[in-house]
């Protein structure tokens, strides 16, 4: 069965959604050894089903599982790979701490990591659900290295295991696979390595491939990022991006774009008019049939209520703009 989205302006999400309170408290109980893994998994499934049902109910096109079963986007994969472990606590800012992955030996994938969760989410809906992976470059950049000794070997080893995961997702039926690389914008001198590693991951895939980046000054890496071997690049455009759009006039954007129209860092819910204006900006610079509408980034730092309200506004704005486009076509 093929599940494809319809243009113009299909809506999607970048990946993560906030976890409901019952799941947050269950994860804490699990960490303290008070509940079993299967009890935690049941609640993660319940939360996944709730998010799938919400996305369907408001009419979104390309769904995500919301990553209810993942903590950190890098640590989750590191915990499930041979050759990686987690460090002690490190402060990221303020009073926030995290455990940073460490490469301690040759990195190998002993079993599929996300396929079962993807299959579960896809079983709940007829709409396509994206397979969600963290890219090899970001995995390396956000980890310590106590084994490889140089970044290139570390990144390419990760690329091999992420490639296997992508193939297994495709074999399970995923038609859209996203490989997130938020660290791309940190070190501009390593863009060639990012492109090479992404090539290993996406080579031979028939699925529509997407990469997401954030917090970048894309005007500095554009048009070079068009060399990334993916079908779609997902960019945060709600906060900035006008400089970048001007560059599209000089170097046309040749891929599908995930056009971010929702600010995920702000508690404020955008108005429908604001979001419509952002979508219409996209239409000025990019082919109508190449645009996916989505939030700037994962919504996991918002509350459940905020995330839902923001997605709803996005969907209403998209519906109104799409109606205008379709009316023009038929008139």
């Amino acid at each position, binding site marked *: 069965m093929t599940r494809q989205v319809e243009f113009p302006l299909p809506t999607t999400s970048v990946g993560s959604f906030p976890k409901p309170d019952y799941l947050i408290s269950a994860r804490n109980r699990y960490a303290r050894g008070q509940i079993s893994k299967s009890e935690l998994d049941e609640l993660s499934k319940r939360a996944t089903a709730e998010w799938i049902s919400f996305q369907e109910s408001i009419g979104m096109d390309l769904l995500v599982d919301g990553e209810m079963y993942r903590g950190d986007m890098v640590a989750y994969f590191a915990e499930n790979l041979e050759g990686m472990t987690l*460090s002690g606590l490190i*402060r*990221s800012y303020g009073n926030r701490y995290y455990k940073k992955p460490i490469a301690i030996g040759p990195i190998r994938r002993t079993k599929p990591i996300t396929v079962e969760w993807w299959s579960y989410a896809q079983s709940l809906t007829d709409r396509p659900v994206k397979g969600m992976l963290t890219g090899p470059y970001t995995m390396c950049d956000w980890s*310590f290295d106590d084994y490889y000794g140089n970044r290139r070997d570390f990144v390419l080893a990760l690329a091999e295991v992420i490639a296997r995961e992508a193939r297994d997702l495709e074999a399970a039926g995923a038609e859209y696979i996203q490989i997130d690389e938020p660290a791309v914008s940190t070190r501009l001198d390593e863009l060639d390595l990012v492109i090479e590693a992404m090539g290993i991951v996406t080579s031979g895939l028939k699925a529509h491939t997407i990469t997401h980046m954030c917090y970048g*000054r894309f005007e500095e890496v554009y048009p070079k990022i068009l060399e990334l071997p993916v079908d779609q690049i997902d960019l945060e455009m709600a906060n900035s991006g006008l400089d970048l759009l001007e560059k599209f006039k000089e170097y046309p954007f040749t891929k599908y774009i995930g056009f971010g129209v929702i600010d995920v860092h702000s508690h404020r819910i955008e108005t429908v008019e604001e979001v419509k204006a952002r979508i219409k900006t996209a239409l000025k610079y990019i082919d109508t049939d190449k645009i996916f509408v989505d939030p700037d980034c994962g919504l996991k730092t918002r509350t459940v209520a905020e995330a839902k309200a923001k997605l709803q506004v996005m969907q209403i704005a998209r519906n109104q703009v799409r109606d205008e486009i379709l009316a023009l076509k038929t008139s």
Partner: protein
Amino acid sequence: MIATVVSHYPKIGDHPGEQKLRQAIAKFEMGEIDYQALVDVEREVTKQAIREMEEAGIELVTDGQIRWQDPVTYICSKLNGFEINGLVRWFDSNTYFRQPVAVGDVAWVEPILVEDYIYARSVATVDVKPVVTGPYTLGVLSIDRYYNDLDKLVLALAAALNAELKELCKQKPPIIQIDEPGIAFNPSVRYPRDARLFLQALELLTKDIDCDLSLYIYHGSASDILQTEQLPVKILGLDMVHGASNWQLLENWPDGLGLGLGIVDARNVKMENVEHLATTIKQAKELIRSDEVHVSPSCGLEFLPKDVALSKLRLLAESVREARE
């Protein structure tokens, strides 16, 4: 030659009893304890951090910057003229700082670090150095909505921090350290690197300061931009791990300038080898033809889990002992 540290030290560890500060901050934010109770915990943790550095063999310590949210906010929030904005990535690391916004005349109001310094010295058995984030770094990492001119902002910061250095000087510290990672070349560099402005700010910052000073530049190399003979400091500290080309600076080292040799990687958990470190220290010492060498990690230690940071300090002290023989 001595073993020292650069700036911060991990605030919490993974073992029971090592999370007091994290818990106290959470309680303070929930309104469950008052400010004085938080300060008491900050002091207790500072005392413990100093003791651990000393026991590892460090001969010149800092206060671990236990009270600092980040290297930028702790200073800028106590100066006039700044608001504090959202999170921004700290260089090419996976940690963040809150970005200051200049919204008015930048000015020094009252001592920022003096009380912390007096406390740290009172609980230490070895020498303690106060550390000030430099005006150039604070300037290039800020948003400027007031001067609309980087030169003016950086020089205003230099004048403000000159007042702070004068206050610190009154405490007669063995040396005052100025941290300027902002002038290093780093793979994430996106701000102006301006040697002329950097030196002008340094002159203004150190004007009429009657105290030994050190300048630390880390997270990258400064060899392409720095003229070592022009610096108004006693010691120049360099990051030899993430700025390997800094070795070039050692080839033409001016007489009378001491070296801060950052050779233990404070950004990765991989353990160095003592023999190799000792050899490196001896090589550096021969190149600069001076014994004024302060051997240290490549930068502050908060990028590492605490047990790893401590192991690296022990290794560093052992290497210094071996290099002395």
